[in-house]
C-alpha cells in the first residue's frame, strides 16, 4: 500500500513535470516528446494501480501518437527547433487563471468528497479476460459505436486532408 502510493506519487510528479515542460520549452519536438513521456508516466500510474492492460495499452498508444504529433509539429510550425525567440502564447492571464481555477476545483472535489472504503484489486490475467467479456457482452453496443466512430473519423480525416481535384480546399 505504501509502495503503491510511493510509485503513484513519483509517476504523478513526473507526469505533471513533463506536462509543464510541454508548454515551457520553445523547441517543438521537445514539446511533443515531453508530452509523450508525460503520457508514459500516466501509463505507469495505471500499472501502479494494477490496471495492467490499460497501462500497457496507454504506453503503447501514446508512443505512436506523440511521435506523429512531433512530425506534424515539424511540418506546420515555424521554428520547430526553438532556437529563435518567439512568443507563442496569447491571453496569458486568462488562461493561467482558468488553469489554476480548474485545478483548485478538482482538488477541492477530491479532498472534500467522502469516497468510501478502498477495495482489493483482482489479479491481472483475470482482469484481461473479464474486460474482454464485459466489452463483448454487456458493453457490446458501446464497442460497436466506438468502432463505427473510428471508421467515420478515419474517413473524415482523410477526406478533409486530401487535396480536392482543382478545388484545393475541403468542401
Amino acid at each position, binding site marked *: 500500500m505504501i509502495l503503491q502510493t510511493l510509485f503513484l506519487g513519483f509517476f504523478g510528479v513526473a*507526469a*505533471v513535470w513533463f506536462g509543464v515542460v510541454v*508548454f515551457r520549452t520553445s523547441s517543438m519536438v521537445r514539446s511533443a516528446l515531453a508530452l509523450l513521456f*508525460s503520457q508514459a508516466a500516466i501509463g505507469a500510474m495505471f500499472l501502479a494501480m494494477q490496471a495492467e492492460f490499460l497501462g500497457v495499452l496507454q504506453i503503447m498508444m501514446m508512443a505512436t501518437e506523440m511521435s506523429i504529433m512531433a512530425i506534424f509539429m515539424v511540418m506546420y510550425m515555424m521554428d520547430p527547433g526553438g532556437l529563435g525567440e518567439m512568443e507563442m502564447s*496569447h491571453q496569458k492571464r486568462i488562461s493561467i487563471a482558468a488553469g489554476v481555477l480548474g485545478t483548485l476545483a478538482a482538488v477541492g472535489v*477530491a479532498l472534500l468528497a467522502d469516497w468510501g472504503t478502498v477495495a482489493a484489486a483482482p489479479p491481472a490475467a483475470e482482469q484481461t479476460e473479464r474486460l474482454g467479456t*464485459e*466489452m463483448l457482452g454487456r458493453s457490446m453496443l458501446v464497442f460497436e459505436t466506438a468502432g463505427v466512430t473510428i471508421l467515420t473519423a478515419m474517413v473524415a480525416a482523410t477526406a478533409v486532408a486530401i487535396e480536392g481535384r482543382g478545388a484545393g480546399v475541403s468542401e
Partner: protein
Amino acid sequence: MVALLTGAVLFGVGLYGALSQTNLVMIMMGVELMLGGALVNLVAFWRFLHPEGYQGQMFVLIVMTVMALEMAVGFGVGTARFRSKGSVEMEEARELRG
C-alpha cells in the same frame, strides 16, 4: 487520493495550455493533457472504489479512443487549413470560409 490530485493538476496544466497557445498543434497537446488527467481519475475511481465492475475500464478505453480520434481529425483539419492558408495559427482564424 494521490492519483486524484495528480489528475486535477494535469487537468489544470492542460487547460492553461489549451487556452494560452496560439498554434493548433499546441492546443491539441493541451487537450491531450486534459484527457490524460481525466483518465488518471477514471482509473483511480475504478481501482479504489469499484474494482469488481469493468465499466470503468470500458470508459477508459473509450476515452483513449476519443483521444486518438480527435488527434486524427484535428490533424486532418490542420492539413487542409495549412494548404489553404499557409499556417495553423489560431489568431488568424477569424472567418469560417476557406
